[in-house]
C-alpha cells in the first residue's frame, strides 16, 4: 500500500512526530481543524514526552476507532514505539509486524522493529530491517542511530585520538 509522504516533520526530544495535512477526499466539503483521530494524536503526544503508559493506552484506544489503513499503520507503529519504551519487546514486535502487514514500505516501522531486534539480540534480523528501512528512506537519521546501536552491540569500538607533532612522519605511520 502506498502512503502519501508526510507534509510536516520535526524531531523534538528524540521523538519524531509527523503530521500529514494532505486532504484525503475531494468529495468531503467539511473542514475539520486538528487531528482526525484525537486518541492517536494524544497517544503520540504522550509518547513524545516520555509518558509510555498513557501513550500506549491512548494509542490502543485510537486504534479501536481508526477508520483507515493510514491511521492503523501510524497507530501500530506508535504502539510498537511505546512498548519498546516499556521494554515489552514481544508486544512491540507484534505491533510493528501489524504495521508492516498493512504497509510493507513504512520505514519507521522497520526502524522500530530493528530496534526491537537489537534489544532481543536478533542482530541479523535487525540488520535486514535497517537495510530495508534505509532503502526506503536513505537519509533517515533515526535509522543511522539504530544502525549505530546495532554496530555497538555487534562490533563495539573505542575512540582513539593520536596527536602527532612529528615533522617527519615515517612512511609506515602515515596511514
Amino acid at each position, binding site marked *: 500500500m502506498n502512503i502519501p509522504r*508526510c507534509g510536516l516533520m520535526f524531531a523534538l526530544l*528524540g*521523538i*519524531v*512526530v*509527523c*503530521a500529514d*495535512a*494532505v*486532504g*484525503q477526499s475531494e468529495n*468531503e466539503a*467539511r*473542514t*475539520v481543524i*486538528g*487531528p*482526525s*483521530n484525537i486518541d*492517536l*494524536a494524544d497517544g*503520540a*503526544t504522550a509518547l513524545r514526552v*516520555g509518558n509510555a503508559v498513557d501513550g500506549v493506552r491512548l494509542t490502543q484506544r485510537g486504534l479501536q476507532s481508526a477508520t483507515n489503513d*493510514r*491511521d492503523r499503520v*501510524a497507530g501500530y*507503529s*506508535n504502539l510498537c*514505539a*511505546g512498548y*519498546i*519504551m516499556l521494554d515489552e519487546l514481544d508486544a512491540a514486535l507484534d505491533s510493528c509486524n501489524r504495521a508492516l502487514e498493512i504497509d510493507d514500505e513504512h520505514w519507521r516501522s522497520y*526502524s*522500530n522493529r530493528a*530496534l526491537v531486534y537489537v534489544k532481543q539480540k536478533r542482530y541479523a534480523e535487525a540488520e535486514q530491517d535497517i537495510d530495508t528501512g534505509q532503502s526506503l528512506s536513505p537519509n533517515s*537519521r*533515526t535509522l*543511522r*542511530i*539504530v544502525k*549505530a*546501536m546495532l*554496530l555497538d552491540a555487534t*562490533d*563495539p*569500538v573505542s*575512540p*582513539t*585520538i*593520536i*596527536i*602527532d*607533532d*612529528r*615533522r*617527519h*612522519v615515517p612512511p609506515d*605511520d602515515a*596511514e
Partner: protein
Amino acid sequence: MLNSRLLLSVVLLLAAAVAADEPRVTYLRDATNNRVPLNTVAPVYPTIARRDRVEGDVQVCFNVDRDGRPFRIAVRSSTDRVFERPSIRAIRASRYVSLPEHQEVPGIKTCRTFRFRLESIG
C-alpha cells in the same frame, strides 16, 4: 477534510545508549619542533563521526606567541570536515612553553596532526 497523521519513533530517545566514551589519547612528537608543548589538549571525538564510524585526519598549523598561546590557527589538510572544529578548539585550548624576553619569537608555523581512530574492542 483536514486529515492529520501522527507517526512516532522512539529510537532517538535511546540515542544516548550509543556510547559516548572518552577517547584514548596517544601523543607522538620528536625534537624538531621549534616550540615546546606545555599543555596539550586533545579534541573531542565528534558524536556523529563516532556514531557513523567515521575516522579521519586533520592537520592544523598555527603560530605560537611569546606567551605560548597559539594564534592564526588554520586547517592545512583534512579528510573530513566533521573533525575540523574540534581540532581547532583543541589547538586554541593548548599552550606552549613561553619564551624568555631575550629570545626571538620564531615566525615559522607549528603544525599538529590529529588522527581520529576507532579501535575495535569486541
